[in-house]
């Protein structure tokens, strides 16, 4: 199953706000820590390496620095 890029969230505004709210009152480094934990939790939930790799590549591309081909 490839990465789902179509809308998949019932109430996007509410979920987006929940993500932002979760960072409320955190310092920048605490926010980085929160994001890292979140990625690990969600990665385990998804469990599918191909989906995660596609998500990682998509995210990197959006920063304008695609993941380099590695050996």
């Amino acid at each position, binding site marked *: 199953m490839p990465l789902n890029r179509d809308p998949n969230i019932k109430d996007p505004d509410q979920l987006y706000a929940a993500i932002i709210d979760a960072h409320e009152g955190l310092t920048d480094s605490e926010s*980085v*820590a929160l*994001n*890292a*934990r979140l*990625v*690990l*939790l969600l990665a*385990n939930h998804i469990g599918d390496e191909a989906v995660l790799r596609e998500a990682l590549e998509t995210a990197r591309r959006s920063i304008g620095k695609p993941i380099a081909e590695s050996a």
Partner: protein
Amino acid sequence: MTDIRQISFPFRRSADQDRPEPAHHPTVIVGAGPVGLVAALDLASKGRASVVIDRRSNLSDGSRAICWAKRSLEIMDRVGRDLGLELGQALVDKGVTWRKGKVFFDTREIYDFDLLPEEGHRRPAFINLQQYYFEHCCIEAAAKTGLIDIRWQEEVEGIEQTGDGPLVTIATPEGSYRIIADWVIAADGARSALRRLMGLGFEGRVFDDQFLICDIKMKMERPIERWFWFDPPFNRGRSALLHRQADDVWRLDFQVGAEADRDEEVKPENVARRVRAMLGDDLDFAFEWISLYRFQSRRLERFRHGRVLFAGDAAHQMSPFGARGGNSGIQDADNLVWKLDLVLRGEAPERLLDSYDWERRAAADENLLNTTRSTDFIAPKSAASRAFRDGALALAATEPFARRLVNSGRLSVAACYDGSTLNGADGFGEGEASAARPGAAALDAPVGNGWLLEELGRGFAALWLGQDGSLAAQCRDMLAGLSSRVRFVNQPTDVSRETLLSRYGALAQPALYLFRPDQHIAARWREVSPANVEAALDRATGKAS
């Protein structure tokens, strides 16, 4: 009790030194560390003499390699058995058997682990034993064989590959002499002189972080467990390790950072401060050994260079977390020696030794990958890497999934030679008993009053397994024509064979396995065909590809 580290091995001028022409020896091994000694013993187990050259006059100065994995013990069992010696048992008796560990993050224990060796194996997952004891055990065994000539305080200073074999120039306290060898095994360690003399590159990474390693002797009531700390109060932002060895000696390892001053760090008073911060101010202890190191992840591009074969740290160097250095070196020797023996006997073509190069390079790459990943977890290289590392550690306290991410070293297991040209047919269906697929090391199991691994080795072995024992006799008869090349092993008749049949996927259907002399599985079938077994033997000895 005498301290074996005080033993001094004298230089003994050999008759070779007084010959006008270079003396000839079939096998010269450079390096009397664990890898060179195991290679010499394995050769002796096949009746082959060797000359072992070592520049030192003492055993390993510190404990160095301490964790000996199950597979290493099994190899020592095999080598010892063929010499009439109990080498594996001697190591287990002297060492400290362990299987449990704890991981701490900051001030909390985040989880404990049990390497859970399943029942029905002769050897434990690990023992801890100082390298000097391992070496001493091998040196005593070597003397008993009468086939191993260890020449201490001699150093290779030149090597030239001639048409007659490698011509080795050896420096001694009384001048130089030369040996012409059929084969040279280069087991001369991380700073291999042979590698340098042959101008071979040793590519890879050197990590910036420094680690302080020390052995202390202390009496402490503490379970025999591997304890690993990430970011503890006594070594903030860094890691530490505590592990027990024989004789109330404990291994401590502190990450000290890239900028630490080497000379300051190794001063006993400074190390003592670290030890007390870790284990308590009132601790009564004595230092055995202090050393500082940086991780290296490097390997030779090729392990075979003509008639020079590189093994152990001379061929590959890796971070110690995972105990893959010494153990992979022992497996190098295990893989190499039976092949060299067949080539020397003229029963296999020289190209069989190319499979040593291929199989052990693949194993080294797997070990390097694992140790590099451990190193990146233990010493993160970037802020993002540290955020994920700390995240995994914090989650591990409550979330089972995160414990699988925590990496304080992935401990050494036997290499599986997937994809090797020596592997023959796999007559099993997809996913059937995959742990016993061609390329894998034999899985031990109880048989009668002993163990399966005691039945394997001593050349190629065929093992028929199945519920209906009468078929075994048929199989033996069918393979009778191959008896000069493969030994038929009877399956045990007692009830304990259930574990054996289950481990080898032969509970429901019978199976025929072919094992190499190093106990790795060469091929397996569901039916018996002498032609197939012969083809697999040809493949596994490099006669066909």
